[in-house]
């Protein structure tokens, strides 16, 4: 039933929206900064996975608009700015999903509005 679980996970993943905002202090070497933008992005991603980063905020939204949001306590002033940044990313995520759905709908010929 592995394929059934995969479909179930895919549907669940599609109907939910997860946004996590973290911060930390990963060390980038000169090798990480070479090889162009793509290499830098991969290096940074790998470093983030391997490092201990702090979760500042986390937002989980379901398809019926149920929303769960986690915010770190005792926020410093800089971390409060990160929460605002987190809100901006949530909005951007919604916009991305909306545009993606809209694009798919337009291509399959459904009425957009």
């Amino acid at each position, binding site marked *: 039933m592995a394929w059934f679980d995969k479909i179930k996970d895919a549907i669940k993943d599609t109907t939910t929206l997860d946004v996590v905002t973290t911060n930390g202090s990963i060390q980038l070497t000169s090798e990480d900064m070479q090889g162009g933008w793509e290499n*830098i992005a991969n290096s940074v991603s790998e470093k983030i996975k391997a490092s201990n980063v702090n979760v500042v905020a986390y937002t989980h939204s379901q398809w019926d608009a149920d929303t769960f949001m986690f915010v770190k306590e005792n926020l410093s002033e800089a971390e409060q700015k990160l929460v605002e940044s987190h809100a901006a990313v949530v909005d951007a995520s919604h916009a991305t999903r909306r545009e993606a759905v809209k694009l798919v709908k337009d291509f399959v010929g459904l009425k957009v509005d």
Partner: protein
Amino acid sequence: MPPEGQFESDAVEVSWGRLRNEVMPRMGVDEPAWTEEPETAYRRGDPAEREILIQHLTDLGYLPEGASSVSDSTIRDAVLKWREENQSFTPSYLRFNTMSTCREFLASGEMQRLAAQVGLENELQVHRLPAPGERSLLARVVHFRMKVFNLGTGTLASGFTDELSDRLREVADQLKIKDQEGLSAELNLVQQLGDVTELTSSLMRRYGTWVFVFRHNPALLSNSVAMRMDTLEKPNKHFIQLHQPTRETYERLFISSGRHMRKIASKEARVRNLFGADGFRYYGAAKPLKWIRRAIETRMTAEEASEHFINRLGLGILQLRLWALGYYKGEVDGAWGPLSFAALQHFLADEKVEVKKLVRALAGGYIALNLRYLFKRILPKLEEPARAVAITDLNQLQEEVYARLEDSDGFDSVQQSYALMDRDEQLLMSNTTRRRRRYHGRRGIFAAIGRFFKRVSRSLRKAANAILKGIKSLVSSALHVFRHFAQNIRKGIRVIGLAVKRFNFWLLKKPFISGGEIEPHFALSRFDWDGDAFHYVQDGTSTQLISRHHRSIRRMNLAFAIVSRLAVKAINVMVLAVTYNWFRVAWTLVKLLTGGFWKELKVLIRRYRETFAVEQPVLVSA
């Protein structure tokens, strides 16, 4: 009968010969009765002389009016009192046989009474003249003229000095005045200095221009020429009193090519290119082709030009003419200042001529003055009988030169040359300095043919210029339209590029990083297919960088939204076009342009543009 000569009072200076020959006959005034020995005649009790004397003393307030009988002692006391009150008067110009008090008083009183009677006080006021009878009259005349135009040392020396001779030669050389008609160049110059028109023509022939350029002095900015340039405000007494020019505050006069100055007047931006930082150019008498003129042109700095005698000479001519008309009250010194401009403004206001037509403010602190047009306006005024000022410095000098040179040996031709003045004046009025010859017979036919081809060539040149101007305007407009489209196309390409970039991030799940490449801090966002996002901010990252990061994401999202909508509609239309369903293509296009799609698209475009605003909030919510 007194000898011919001049006398002077504190109020009136006049040439007796001129008074007797011109003013008295015109006004119908009889010549006063003179006796050889007035004192003895008075003592003898001549009733006519006594009556005239009593009348003068009464007119001047030295005797009470209506006195029935006046004793001789009263008359003598009144005369002595008048004499006492006029101690400052220097009778050096009196040339009477007998320097008696009564004679002097009679002459002065008669002149004042006459002046008051005919109302010609202004006309009778002339400047002090060289004393007649002196052997060095010509030298004094030359000195005087050189002083008027600020060309010499300014001293009224009574003889020719080496310095004066050298200066005359130098000025004649610079004005290109040559020996002609038996006259040396120096004497030609002296003659021209006595005739403003001739001098003007020489100046213009030499420098080929009628446009004078003045440099504005910032020290007089508040009430300066440049500030008052666009107004027809008449000068008032406060303006003149408060802003009397001094040597330090005069604005300098420059001369440049009229042709170029007309170009400058139309395009002020060329001033700097033409004049350079502080210099200017001027050209010779000839007007050769443009490339030749460029080759022979000389260049002077403004400082050098300000010291050039031509500057003062040109303006001196203008000042003299305005002075003769009663507008200019200052010295004829060839220095531009508020008084000069006030006189010019006053004259133009009376003539109802807009200052803009004659004087134009240029960039770089320069103004241009169309002297030719101005002289055309001034000259007819000088010829009007009602307002004619017959007695002026130069006219008087000219008259004296007439009289004195008749008996001289080497200057007869000078007098003959003066006969050319009227012709030159008319030449100036005829709007050209080029003397046109008329031919008859065969040469006349050839001349007519030549004039015909000249007119044709001029018409062709005008037409070609008009066509070139039209083509230039057309090309300029096309270039402007092309630039507009090119700019929009560049913007469109940028939007498409952003949309592709965003699509790439979304499709390949690539993280979007701001900073990092050039600074140690960075922000990272990675969006999954279904919109899940991971956001990481390095410790110490500035708020500005985070804000820029979100602004970029927002810009990319909007670009993606715009492009995706357009792409879908474009594909839709293309599919319909491929199937030759033209009616539905047209209908779809109409719906796109008139329906909600277009409005929605405009909203997206507006929001996209807002992301480029300078004042963006630090963090923007979508």
